[in-house]
Structures are given as structure tokens and as C-alpha cells.
């Protein structure tokens, strides 16, 4: 049963990722990205990491994917839909590079002994994560808070600078 769910979620994740990049309209691409992020979240559930999975759904699908969707919808114009299609040479180069990276990683994985690990040994609970965040990793959390604040201020400044430019 777990294997069936894993295969289904793998298909959803990889298929939605391809849709995100290859959909004709960028808005369908954004929906495909959300589907792929959801697929990864279900893989986190299968890995016995429900806290990370819920965090992924809340932050990635609830915030990032919706932010992208709103950005596309608010400034939707003909130009967004009219992407210059990649030349066949660029497309071929992209497919070959992507395949080469995948084959290199996959052959390294198959050659290694990673398939020996079949049972989840570390099922850390919320408490373990909370303890780690509030003790050893507390400085990282503080720096991350500052980075988030800086990014929000940066994004607001960018849009404000643009308004001032338009006013001139």
C-alpha cells in the first residue's frame, strides 16, 4: 500500500513539475508548481515527517504559490502569455543537460548502498524539532528572522522606488 502511494505521489510530483515548466500559459505553470510542491509534501508524510509536510503546505502552497498566482493575475497581459519558444537546439541542450544530471545522480545512488536503508530510524517528534530550534539552532532562527525582515523591506522598497520613478 505504501509503495502504491509512493509511486502515485512520485508521478504527481514529477508530472506537475514538467507541467510547471512546459504549460502554455504561465498561470497553469504556477498551478503545476503548486501540485509539485504538494507532491513533495506528501512524500514528507511518507517519510514520517508530518511537521515538515504541514509546514511545506502552509508556506509553499499557502504563501509562495498563491503569491506567484496573484502576481501573474494582477499584472496579466498578453506579453506574459507570449513566451518566446526555445529553439530546438536550446531545448535539446536543456534535455541533454537535465538527463545527464539525472543519470549521474541516479547511477551514483544505485551504485551506493543507500537501498540498504529501508526502515526509518529517526522519527523525530515536534518536541525534538522545537528543542533543537530553541537551543542549538536558536542563532540560525534569529538570523533567518532578520533575513525575512530584510527581504520584505527590500521587496517593499523596490515597488516604492518604482512608484517614485513613475511620478517623475
Amino acid at each position, binding site marked *: 500500500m*505504501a509503495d502504491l502511494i509512493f509511486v502515485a505521489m512520485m508521478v504527481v*510530483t*514529477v508530472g506537475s*513539475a*514538467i507541467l*510547471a*515548466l512546459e504549460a502554455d500559459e*504561465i498561470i497553469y505553470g*504556477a498551478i503545476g*508548481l503548486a501540485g*509539485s*510542491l504538494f507532491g*513533495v509534501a506528501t*512524500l514528507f508524510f*511518507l*517519510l*514520517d*515527517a508530518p511537521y*515538515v509536510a504541514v509546514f511545506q503546505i502552509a*508556506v*509553499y502552497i499557502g*504563501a*509562495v504559490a498563491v*503569491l*506567484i498566482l496573484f*502576481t501573474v493575475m494582477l499584472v496579466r497581459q498578453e*506579453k*506574459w502569455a507570449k513566451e518566446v519558444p*526555445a529553439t530546438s537546439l536550446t531545448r535539446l541542450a*536543456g534535455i541533454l*543537460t537535465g*538527463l545527464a*544530471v*539525472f543519470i549521474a545522480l*541516479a547511477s551514483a*545512488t*544505485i551504485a551506493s548502498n*543507500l*537501498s540498504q*536503508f529501508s*526502515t*526509518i*530510524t*529517526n522519527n*523525530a517528534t515536534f518536541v*525534538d*524539532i522545537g528543542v*533543537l*530550534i530553541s537551543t*542549538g*539552532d536558536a542563532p540560525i*532562527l534569529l538570523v*533567518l528572522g532578520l533575513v*525575512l525582515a530584510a*527581504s520584505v523591506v*527590500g*521587496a517593499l522598497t*523596490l*515597488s516604492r522606488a518604482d512608484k517614485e*520613478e513613475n511620478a517623475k
Partner: protein
Amino acid sequence: MNTLSDFVLVSAMLFGIGIYGLVTKRNALRLLFAVELMINAANLNFVAFGQYLPSLGTTAGSSTNAVGQTFVLFSIALAAAEAAVILAIVVVAYRLHKDVDVSELKSMEG
């Protein structure tokens, strides 16, 4: 039963698709999608290795190791900040140039 290598292979697939997108696409939003897919591939690896491999060190007051999951929480938050900044840049570039094709945005070229 799924093994660690199954998850690593899915992650490699996602990473390969992200590389394909970075090489072929010129639309700034598609590039953002490709980068997000690659970040997710890395996150999946972090959680998979953290859950399957035997714990070397232990968290204070606990016998399990939550480092992999904790790192992914930080990574997701950082990716959200990155997406917000990139979208702001994309919107400004669109207002200034009426286009989000990165090959057309040449005003910052050295």
C-alpha cells in the same frame, strides 16, 4: 517498503527537471519555478537522509536526531523570502520594460 534510494531518485528527477528549466527557459517566472523545484529536490534529500540514516549525534534531551527536518524548515522559510524578492524584481522589471524575458533585460549588463 520504500528505501532511502527511492526518495533520492525522485529528488534526482526533480533536480534534473529544474536544470532543464534553467537551461531552456527565458521567462523570469519560469526560471523561478525551476529554482523552486531544485530547492524542493534538496529539501527532499535532507529529510530522507535525516530520517533513514542512523543518528550520529543526538538532540539535547532526546534520543532522536531532528537536524534534517529542522534544516528543511529553515530552508523553506529562506525559499519563501527569496520568492518574495524575486517576484518584486520581476514586477518592477515588467513595469519598466514591459517584458519579463531575461534576455531582454540588458540595462544591468556589465
